[in-house]
């Protein structure tokens, strides 16, 4: 099911006249014209309404005039203070430092994934394990962040391979956070195949939020994520069910506390949108993040086999989310994460602080990635590029760098400038600018500069395509869809996963990528 096509609007015939309008951008969405303003308010106008607005002929006593004025689209009544408050709310993340700290505790992994982003190492490469000393230094730097809320994310490789260091970090960081009065949470991204009851007991006791990868139905998953025993899917599913049951036994709300799963969309995934959604629902997942494949790690080498045109991805996205909306209509709660992020910005005027989808992006100022050897990068993608031989995004080392050296690094400053959409060609005129973001590492990898060229960027095409879809749905005004969208933007903190500090921090901030209601 693809987007309905409509005759393009004829701007020459409209003959727009500047004068009465405040600053606005516009885009045709189906039969409507979407207008957004500087601070991110939006209106969906009919073509006749847009013509009146663009020609400055809106009658002052009309309903359209009231709508335009109350959303701050008219110059005469433009409320600067209100606009400033809205911009401040959208960019609230600017005043705190990195809250996401990725610890790559090993590069070793027992699974071989055809799209591996992490540049895994074989299981005998013990030299790619992080030491406890390096981990402690990384934790000390992480806790120096000006953000009052710190998330330490264990990644790999497969982090369960180096569980001794995971265990040590949980104990060490928990103690140091209590001493410093920092709010702290742990997350772990694991394939679960090396999980056992003892490790799980420790992780649950230390409130580590657990995430895994599920590529969809068993056959697809096992074809893309290979174990020697060819049962990667079965093992992941076994532990997902066991962990979810453990949360229920602990009296935790299963709609809020459950294993999160991540999808990597390959060419083979595209026709299986229904089976993928069904798999996630059957596993008790309340969210599905329809992520397109990244050009990092092994995926760079296997791209010809895995890649697909972005138009094919967008058709997959529309089919999958249409199906998810239909399931929600039937009472099944499942949300699409991209949609949740965009809709929170569109409908609530807030930024959920998803680090790759904000302006400026979070590299260096919202996240830091610590490699197994103590080298520190602006983001996980920067670390992946380092493993591919390009150290452009290396910021320092846990042994020699101070916290301020890292976040004030010239590379971070350049990335902040490059990912600010107010300085990007195309983005400055894009109707979706208030809700969007760009990724410097992706631009660098694909187009040779951290700025990139948005008109030729596949990420830009995906972001525009998803927002086209969401605004088409908003324009259609289906009450069930609107109610589902409203629920998708309702964020409930997972307080159980926050470590208990002995002293209260002075301020609080939401955890990164805080979950929305399914």
């Amino acid at each position, binding site marked *: 099911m693809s987007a309905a096509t409509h005759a393009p609007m004829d701007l020459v015939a409209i003959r727009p006249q500047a004068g009465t309008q405040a600053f606005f951008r516009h885009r045709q969405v189906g039969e409507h014209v979407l207008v957004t303003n500087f601070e991110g308010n939006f209106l969906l106008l009919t073509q006749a309404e847009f013509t009146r607005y663009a020609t400055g002929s809106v009658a002052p006593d009309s309903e359209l005039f009231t709508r335009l004025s109350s959303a701050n689209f008219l110059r005469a009544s433009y409320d600067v203070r209100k606009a400033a408050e809205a911009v401040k709310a959208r*960019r609230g993340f*600017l*005043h*705190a*430092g*990195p809250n996401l700290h990725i610890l790559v505790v090993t590069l070793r992994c027992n699974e071989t994934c055809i799209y591996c982003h992490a540049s895994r190492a074989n299981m005998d490469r013990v030299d790619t394990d992080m030491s406890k000393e390096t981990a402690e230094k990384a934790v000390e730097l992480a806790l120096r*962040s*000006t953000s009052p809320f710190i998330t330490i994310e264990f990644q790999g490789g497969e982090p369960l391979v180096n569980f001794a260091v995971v265990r040590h970090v949980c104990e060490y960081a928990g103690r140091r956070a209590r001493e410093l009065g920092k709010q702290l949470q742990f997350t772990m991204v694991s394939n679960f195949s090396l999980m056992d009851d003892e490790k799980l007991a420790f992780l649950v006791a230390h409130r580590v939020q657990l995430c895994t990868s599920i590529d969809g139905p068993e056959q697809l998953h096992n074809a893309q994520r290979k174990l020697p025993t060819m049962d990667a899917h079965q093992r992941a599913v076994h532990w997902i069910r066991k962990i979810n049951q453990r949360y229920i036994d602990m009296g935790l709300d299963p709609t809020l506390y459950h294993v999160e799963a991540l999808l990597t969309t390959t060419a083979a995934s595209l026709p299986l949108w229904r089976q993928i959604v069904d798999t996630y629902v059957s596993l008790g997942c309340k969210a599905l993040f329809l992520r397109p494949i990244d050009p990092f790690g092994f995926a760079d080498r296997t791209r010809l086999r895995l890649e697909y045109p972005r138009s094919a991805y967008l058709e997959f996205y529309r089919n999958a989310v249409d199906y998810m909306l239909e399931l929600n209509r039937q009472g099944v709660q499942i949300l699409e994460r991209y949609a949740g992020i965009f809709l929170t910005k569109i409908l609530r005027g807030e930024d959920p602080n998803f680090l790759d989808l904000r302006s*400026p992006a979070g590299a*260096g*100022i919202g996240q830091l990635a610590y490699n197994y050897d103590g080298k520190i990068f602006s983001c996980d993608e920067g670390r992946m590029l380092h493993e591919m031989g390009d150290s452009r995004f290396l910021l320092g080392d846990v042994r020699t760098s*101070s916290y*301020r050296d890292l*976040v*004030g690094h010239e590379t*971070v*400053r350049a990335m*902040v*400038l490059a990912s*600010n959409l*107010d*300085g*990007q*060609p195309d983005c*400055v005129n894009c109707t979706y600018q208030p809700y969007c973001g760009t990724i410097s590492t992706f631009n660098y990898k694909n*187009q*040779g*500069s951290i*700025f990139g*060229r948005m*008109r*030729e960027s596949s990420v830009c095409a995906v972001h525009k395509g998803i927002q086209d879809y969401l605004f088409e749905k908003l324009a259609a005004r289906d009450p069930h869809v609107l109610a589902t969208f409203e629920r998708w933007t309702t964020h409930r903190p997972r307080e159980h996963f926050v470590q208990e500090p002995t002293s209260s921090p002075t301020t609080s901030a939401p955890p990164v990528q805080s979950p929305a209601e399914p």
Partner: protein
Amino acid sequence: MQSSYPDIPAGLVAHDLTDAAVELRVDPAIYPLQAVYGAAYIFIDRCYVFLDRPAADALRVTLTAKSGQADVGALRALIGEFANELISCAWRHQITQDNRVLLETVTLQAIAGAMGPPSLDDLASFDFSDQGFDDPLGIAMSWEEKHGKKPPPATTSEPTGDTTGDTTGNPTSGHGVEEPTP
């Protein structure tokens, strides 16, 4: 050297299959030099890049594939990609000037918010020696360094001819007892 392309105005680009090179002529009245530098730079990982000015009203960009070989399609793609990067850099150059205050404000808040105030440890290890300091007015100098030691009143110098004098006592007014230290 082929220099005719159906989709590009004549005389702007040419390619040489033997050398795996392309040449582009750029009008500096349309594209600022900074944009040409920015666009050319992103090709240095796969091309040798040479800029020159064959005429007063033209810049020439020569891109030679480092691999030493490229087919016609690859060279045509180089031309196209350079042209797209050039327009992108030129527009970005303009946007950066237009939105300078906004970009600087956001960047400052982002970096300052992430760095926070320096701790005493940070200050103790701060290297002040590499801070360039330009003080043409001598604001950071002491009074004695700037004006020399004030002589005793009994040896006040003769007026320099302006008999109106300066009753404010401002020694830098040109009427006082001391000359500014050069």
